[in-house]
């Protein structure tokens, strides 16, 4: 987007890339989106504000990562 405040020279350097249709991306996005959010939840928040598994083991195991990745932690 930041390119060409100057009118584009006649021969573009990068050949035009055809966008991938959103329909083709949607099922992957839904599946991976949910999967990745679950993973991020366990790294970032489980046994903090909310807990699906009782105890403190998950929290203690990822404790340092949680602090250093910027998630709120105890």
């Amino acid at each position, binding site marked *: 987007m930041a*390119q060409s405040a100057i009118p584009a020279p006649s021969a573009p350097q990068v050949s035009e890339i055809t966008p991938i249709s959103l329909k083709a991306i949607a099922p992957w996005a839904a599946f991976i989106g949910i999967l990745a959010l679950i993973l991020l939840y366990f790294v*970032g928040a489980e046994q903090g504000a909310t807990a699906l598994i009782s*105890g403190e083991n998950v929290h203690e195991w990822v404790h340092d990562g949680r602090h250093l990745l910027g998630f709120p932690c105890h």
Partner: protein
Amino acid sequence: MNSISVRALLVRGMLAGLAAGVLALIVAYLLGEPRVDSAIAYEDGHSHEHGVELVGRTMQSTAGLATGVLIYGVAIGGIAGLAVCVALGRIGRFGPRATAALVSIGALIAVYVVPFLKYPANPPSVGDPDTIGKRTTLYFLMVALSVLLAVAATILGKRLAPRLGNWYATVAAAAAFVTAVGLAYAFLPAINEVPKDFSATLLWQFRLAALAIQATLWVSFGLVFGHLAERLLSPRPAAATTTGTTTGAATAAH
């Protein structure tokens, strides 16, 4: 054809995320862990209600840290890989490498830097355990808001481009993003739970380390994923090249 390239890009995104996670882990171990240890030493010198230690410090700072950072890298890599799939050919005349770099820098700002400036990372012993619910909600709210605003700004820039030209459309969209983020900062409640005698130097060093970890993660993700995506998507200069040195020639061609 399309679906296959989405799958191939997704796999490469997660692999690039894993590689970026390894680099971020090195930074986290070298720059982050000494500050976590110092903060815990401060905590131990003060009131402190942790019971029995479930996981020892050695495990927390090695295997535990690696688990957290690597899972984070793979998860982020998958999502960012798909974001590049969407952005390819839609945000301007950029090839796969430049698109991956732009999306990664945008993600570093939207996913991390913007929320960090309002709710920065805190070392152990900073933060009242009783407010963890409120802090978690606000942090994730800030991340979600920031990502939505960044996507909205990108769409706005694209809409304005035919009228204003690419340069001024980008400037206008960025200005709209900054204004909206400023409003969110102003209206969301502040959190300040740093103990009075907690070392300011240590807090600064910890937060810098946290920023360095994320910068390493996103920049290396953008570079590695861009490289893999370019090899996947760009047609090789046909024939002529001897089998061995294709990659070098392809890189030089751009």
